[in-house]
Structures are given as structure tokens and as C-alpha cells.
């Protein structure tokens, strides 16, 4: 039935197009070669070009006003975050300027020089000076961006062992995350997926004989003490995953067979972030949407949605299979005291094994 309907609709569309074409043809019967642009076409399309320029500007303004309040451009929660944000803002401003000017020139010329019969174009094939200008200007601008960008990159990716970073392993599998803290000795026990023993609850494949591993702590929530440099070591047991922590401007793939790393220092606790006016506004807005949606759901006899409360998140950002879209872990940033108290409640590895 649906197939039949679809076919009928398609046929109607084709008939409609055919009718349109007939009307166009009748209107232009006198013109010699009707399918080449006439002065009238040039004029109409010239005006449309200007209209389209306004459309592009319009959609830019609307996008910035409606969605420009981006969590990724402000409210970063790590020490290196503002560095990335500054570079991002500089790049965006630059792009915005170039985009506005070049699009204007393109569409304005398309409008201004629309063809007329009998007019002749300017024979203008070359100008070394002009071309030198628009080679050198991008060279200078890009040289600046490259130097700034590389400085930022090196300072983010370089791990300074003098800072005594706390070592935490992020362990990925289809479709969840596990964290392993290195414990008192701040050294992770050796591990390999070949050592996984589900019956003994050794789910991460930690070498039971390695003394470093005995005090490791395995958790399903990621707690971080504020202000302490953290060095994440990433591992995956099955396919590629990517540990994406957008609020901290951090991302690194988790690759089976190798250990990758990324370090940062969290600077804002979850509680502090929740107090920020921008975050409160965003959360209130999201909750409005959720209340609306809940009404619909209840009317259909389904469960309403929970209230949203702000939390830092770890997301999987590399396609990993069926439930890739729901592979997440909550991150809690808290004071050192709160962190220590939480840590005390956790079991260390040697006590978590089932004998």
C-alpha cells in the first residue's frame, strides 16, 4: 500500500515538473536557443546572487545568536583549556572576517558584472603584484597560526614528570568505561588482556603477581581531585574507542595492543561548575525542554524524563559498534579531602579478587 502511494506521489511530481517545463517553454517560444542564458536570466540570477549573500550572512548571524553560546568556547575545566579556547576564538574570528569579505566579493561581483548583450569583458589574464599579495598575506597569517598552534600543542601533550601527576588508567570495552587508580605507589600494576580472569573478577587483566598492582583501585566512576595534575593511560580490550572529555578539552584514542596517554589538570570542581550562571542557565533551558518532552511521554503512557543535573562526562568518540552512542562515564571533580574520603571507600585490587 505504501509502495503504491509512493509511486503515485512520484508520478504526480514528475507530471508537475513536466507541466512546469511546458509553461516555461511556451513563455519563451520566440527566443532562438532557449536553453542559453538571456540578459533577463542574467539579471534575475544576478539579483538572486545578492539575495543569497544575505542568506549566508543571515544564517551566520542566526547560528551565532541561537547556538553561539558554546560550552566548548568557555567554561573549560582544565588548566590547558583556556589556551585551546583562546586559540579557537582567534581562529574563529579570523575565519569570520575572511568568510565575510570573500563571500561578499564573490556574490557582489556575480551581481555587479552580470552579462549584457554587446558588452565586452575586460581581458585581464594576469597580475603578478596582486597574486603576490594574496600569496604572502596567507603565508604570514598561517605562519602566526602555526607557531601559536604548535606551542599550544606541545605544552598540552608534553607530560612533565616533575609535577608528580596522579596516574589513572582509562579502560575501554564495548560498551563501557572502567577507571583504575594506581594507588599509594602511584604505579599501575602490569596488565594484559590475556590475564583477564572473569571467574576471579580480574576483569582488567592485571598481573596478580605484580606488587605494584596490589593497591590499584578499580572504579566505574571517575573521581578527580581538583588542582592535581592527572596522567591518563588509556587501554582498550576489543576495538578502537576514544576517551573524549569535552569539558576538559581532552581526547585520546584507546587502542587495543598499546597504551596511549593524555594528561591534564582539572581546575573547577563539579560543585563550582554547577554554580556558574552560564551553566545554570543552560541546565534550566535543558530542563524546560525535558519537561515539555515528559508531558508528551506521559500522555503516551510512558515514563517521564529525569531532571538533568550538570555533570562532567567521558564519552566514547570513536565508532565502536552497536551501542557506541551510549558509552559514557560520569566524572566528578572534587576537593582533595572529598576525593580521599571517596577513595577510602573503594576496594583495592588484591581485596577485590574472588578466590
Amino acid at each position, binding site marked *: 500500500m*505504501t*509502495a503504491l502511494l509512493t509511486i503515485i506521489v512520484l508520478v504526480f511530481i514528475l507530471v508537475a515538473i513536466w507541466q*512546469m*517545463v511546458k509553461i516555461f517553454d511556451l513563455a519563451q517560444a520566440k527566443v532562438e*536557443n532557449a*536553453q*542559453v*542564458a538571456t540578459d533577463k536570466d542574467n539579471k534575475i*540570477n544576478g539579483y*538572486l546572487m545578492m539575495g543569497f549573500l544575505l*542568506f549566508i550572512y543571515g544564517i551566520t548571524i542566526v*547560528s551565532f545568536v541561537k*547556538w553561539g553560546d*558554546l560550552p*566548548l*568556547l568557555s567554561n573549560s575545566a582544565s588548566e590547558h583549556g583556556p*589556551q585551546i579556547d583562546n586559540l579557537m576564538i582567534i581562529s574563529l574570528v579570523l575565519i569570520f572576517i575572511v568568510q565575510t569579505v*570573500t*563571500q561578499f566579493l*564573490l*556574490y557582489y561581483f*556575480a551581481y555587479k558584472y*552580470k552579462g549584457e548583450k554587446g558588452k565586452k*569583458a575586460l*581581458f*585581464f*589574464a594576469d*597580475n603578478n603584484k596582486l*597574486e603576490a599579495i*594574496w600569496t604572502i598575506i596567507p603565508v604570514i597569517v598561517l605562519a602566526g*597560526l602555526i607557531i601559536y*598552534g*604548535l606551542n599550544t*600543542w606541545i605544552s598540552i601533550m608534553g607530560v612533565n614528570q616533575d609535577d608528580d601527576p596522579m596516574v589513572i588508567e582509562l579502560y575501554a570495552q564495548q560498551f563501557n568505561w572502567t577507571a583504575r587508580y594506581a594507588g599509594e605507589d602511584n604505579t599501575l600494576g602490569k596488565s594484559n*588482556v*590475556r590475564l*583477564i580472569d572473569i571467574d576471579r573478577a580480574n576483569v582488567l*587483566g592485571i598481573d596478580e603477581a605484580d606488587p605494584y598492582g596490589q593497591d590499584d583501585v578499580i572504579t566505574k566512576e571517575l573521581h578527580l581531585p581538583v588542582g592535581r595534575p592527572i596522567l591518563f593511560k588509556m587501554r582498550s*580490550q*576489543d*576495538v*578502537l574507542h*576514544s576517551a*573524549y572529555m*569535552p569539558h576538559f*578539552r*581532552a581526547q585520546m*584514542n584507546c*587502542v587495543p*595492543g*598499546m597504551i596511549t596517554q593524555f594528561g591534564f589538570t582539572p581546575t573547577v570542581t563539579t560543585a563550582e561548575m554547577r554554580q556558574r550562571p552560564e551553566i545554570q542557565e*543552560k541546565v534550566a533551558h*535543558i530542563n524546560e525542554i*525535558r519537561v515539555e518532552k515528559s508531558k508528551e511521554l506521559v500522555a503516551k503512557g510512558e515514563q517521564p*524524563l*529525569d531532571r538533568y543535573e550538570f555533570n562532567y*562526562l567521558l564519552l566514547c*568518540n*570513536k565508532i565502536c559498534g552497536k551501542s557506541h*552512542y551510549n558509552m559514557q562515564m560520569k566524572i566528578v571533580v572534587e576537593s582533595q579531602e572529598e576525593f580521599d574520603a571517596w577513595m577510602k571507600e573503594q576496594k583495592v585490587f588484591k581485596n577485590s579478587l574472588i578466590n
Partner: protein
Amino acid sequence: MSAHEDTHAHEDHGHHHKETFVTKYIFSQDHKMIAKQYLITGTIMGVIGVFMSMMFRMQLAWPEQPNVLFEAVLGKWAPDGVMSSDIYLALVTIHGTIMVFFVLTAGLSGTFSNLLIPLQIGARDMASGFLNMISYWLFFLSSVVMVISLFVEAGPAAAGWTIYPPLSALPMAQGGSGLGMTLWLVSMAIFIASSLMGSLNYIVTVLNLRTKGMSMTRLPLTIWTFFITAVIGVISFPVLLSAALLLIMDRSFGTSFFLSDIFIQGEVLHYHGGSPVLFEHLFWFLGHPEVYIVILPAMGLVSEIMATNSRKPIFGYRAMIASILAIAFLSTIVWGHHMFVSGMNPFLGSVFTFTTLLIAIPSAVKAFNWITTLWKGNLQMNPAMLFAIGFVSTFITGGLTGIILGDSALDINVHDTYFVVAHFHLVMGISALYGMFAGIYHWYPKMFGRMLNKNLGYIHFWVTAICAYGVFFPMHFIGMAGLPRRYYTNTNFPLFDDLANVNVIITIFALIGGAVQIIYLYNFFSSIFFGKKAPQNPWKSTTLEWTAPVKHIHGNWPGEIPHVYRWSYDYSKPGHEDDFVPQNIPLKEGEEELQH
């Protein structure tokens, strides 16, 4: 490299041998027919690819809502009309594969390289008509295999078009990594063979079969881009083939090139010592040049169409060639910018940031040269010209955000978000598609001897142009908000709830943009039979293809091949009555050829 004088052509290409239906329309060795075959196969694949995007866009806008269309098309993959997450990933994967390889590589480059290389350089046909025929039929075969893979029991390949192992290597990791992935790899291997045969043919033809007087610096920019594209293809496609073969070995013969230390579904696999990062390197060694394989021919077509319709020479012909060469060279040393967060040494990230951002320079030169070509022109707003202008616009908009993505420090946070999706769709998806449409509107008379309806062309362009920006511009913003790509639905993240309405807007634009392509398809197919008969040189162009008769003949020109006396951009040259001087017109007495 002197031009080639075709002495034996008359006997070879006379009218004495009879053509049957099969040799003329199916196993044709004539480059013009092969071009049309590429175009029509590419169009069919394009319809499939675009239709898939419409379906997953609907899922994204109205997540997990029952839809009669899903029920009808997806069958068991949409129980009660709700799209399953497996098929969502498969649709995304196959959409990417089809659009990048089957439409924008074979459909675009295959069509126009075949049509224009012999006609614009003044050759009777490709260097090897037979190889050319095999190239098309391998492409056809690979298309068939790809389409068949959509119907296998466990589902088509679903690991993303980049098919990173281990996801793509292990059938237990994902249903689509079973037979579906095997067929995907087989299809791509055949495709690469087809592409290499085509490319070698293009290179040899351009170097050896130019007519008398057609020096390299008199070539239209179209030929330059096809030539360089073929060179990039020959350099990079074999690397993808090796990656595909190694992956097949890992999948079927137990080797460990890309796999190591895997524990999945309760058991440890035997793989030891391989690395998925190696696959990423091999894949992107093709994958990045591939975007230039897609965009360069579009640039060539646009340059040619802009000059013709502006009635002006292309501005900075030599700078254009230099920038093509620069882009081609840089394209092979930037692949690592797809891998900043792959776990490779951060020092490599620095190197690739440097080389990547350099590409902005030749790209900027090209953009400014196109804009200057319009300046003080006499712009003929044919549909092809509109698409050419649209190309420059989307190329700029999409290209600029490359400055962010190519910067390793910034990539950390927008990597694999919708920001990337928006960027590459504008800069190489939409732009290349515009280039292709521009080419089709412009050379349709050459291909089919009839004209496309211009008013339908205008509607096609303007609606498509609005929808393209409507879809991809807001997408940058949901990406900057941190929304990852390849998520079946975002409803599990309340954090992104305020972006749901953006997704609805994007989808509505996408559906309108997709639907308007029906107008184009109608125009294309009905004009083959009912279009207005084309004059020999409808756009008053200078290049050689318009000196060939409208009715296709084997060998392209009756009698001798025209000789060439000037470059291909003598538009509005002072001292001439007409505003164009074809390349086969000798210089007037005292006239100087432009020292371009």
C-alpha cells in the same frame, strides 16, 4: 614531448567497420560512450547514497520514532518501523563509501576525464580504448558487489567508511563485520583496480596524444587537474589496496597486521603484535589524497566554466597550475592530521599540523583567482555558471574551518564531532557535487547532443544552494558544542538536549535538498530524448571539444584533427570581433600570444 600527429587515424577510425548494439552501448571502447556509462552508473549510486542520508537524517531528527518509510525500505532492520542502531551505522558507512568513491571519484573524475581528455587535447580516443572499457566494467562490477552487500543476512559493513580495525576485522564485534565487510573489501579492491587502469590511461593520453600545437601550457585547466588527479591516484590508491589486502588476511587467514591483545565476548583472541594505528596510516595515506582526487577535477571544471561564462580568461593561469601542483604535492604528506589523537607520537602531530596548514596557501590563491576572474566580466548566468559560483562559495566556507581542524591543538576537542562532518561535507562533498553538476550542465550538449532545460536548472541550483547551507552551517555549531558524530541518537545525553531542535532544522533542509534532486533527475533523463537540439558550440567556448561535430563519431573529428595555435582562454581578447577565439584559429598577423 612533441605533439602527436595522427597519421593512421583515417584507416582505423573510418566508417567501414560496423557497430552492433553491444559494441556501441555496452562493451564500447569509445571514450564518449564510456564517459556516459560512468555518469549514469555514478548517478544511480548517487541516488542510493543520498537516499540513505535522508533516512539517517530522519532518525537523527526524530530519534527512535516509527516511520513507514523505514518499515518499507529497511524491513527486518526496522522492527515496528523504528530504525535499529546496527543499520544506522551501516547507512552512515555505506553513504560515505558510495559518495566518496562511487559518485565523487568514479562518477565525477571517470565521467569528465573520459569525456574531455581526448576531446580537449585533440586526440581520437584514449591511449588504450580496451583498458578504458575494462576500467569501466570493473567499476560497474564493484558497484554491483557494493549494492549486493546491502542485502546480506548480518547486514552491510557498518564500521564507518574508514573501516578501522579491529571493529571491521572481527565479526563478533559487530554484525556488519561479517560477510558485509568481506564484500565491502572485495568491492573496493575491484574499484581500485578500475581506478588505476583509468588513471594510467589518462596520464599516458595527456602526455602522448596532444594534437599539434597543444603544449602543456596551452592545455585547459580541466586537463591539468585530470592529469594531476590521475597522478595522485596512482600514487595513493595502491596503498589502500595493500591495506585492504592485509585486512583481508587478518580477517580470513589469521595474520596479525592490525590486531593485538584482544579480549572480546569472553575470550582472548590469538592476535599478537599488530597495530590498528598502522591501518590508520595506510588508510589515510590514500584517504587524504582522496579528497583532492575528488576536489581537483571539480576545480578544473569550475575554472573552465567560469572563464567561459565570464567571457574572460581565467585569472592567473600559471598560478592556477602551480597551486594544483602544490596541492597535489602537499596532499601526500598531510595524512596524519586525521590521527592527532590516534596515539601516535605527538611530535608527528606537530609535523602534520605544519604541512596541513600550508595547504591553505595554494587554496587561497585559487579562491582569489576565481573571484578575480569574475571581476569586470560579462557574466552569462547559465546553470553551469551558478554551480561554479556556488562551488567557490562552499569551498571557501568549508575550507576555512580546515584551519581549525588542521591545528592539532584545536583538533583535540572537535575531532570526530559534527564540526568535522560540517567541514568536509562543505569543502569536498557539496563543492565536488557542485563541480560535477556544473560539468554536467555545461557538457551535456557535448554528451547527448541536446540541451538541459535551463529553468529547471535554475530551480535545481537555488534550492540546492539554500539547503546545502541550511544543512551544514548549523552543523558546525552542534559540533562545537561537543556532539560526537556516528551516534545513533543523542537522547542518552541530556547535555545535548538543547541541540535536538537544531537536528530537526538540519533534517528538514536535507529532505528538501534531497527532494529537489528529483527535478534534476527528470531534467537529465527526459532531455536525453526530448531536450532542445544542441548547436555545435552553445556556450561560445574556445576549447577543442566544441569544434567536433554534435553527432558523435568514432575518432571525434571527421578528417584531420584540428591544430592548436593559442591557449584556451582567449575570451574578449582585444583586436577580435567575437568575444572568443577558439584554440584552432591561427594567430592573426601581428597578434601576439599572451605570455601568460
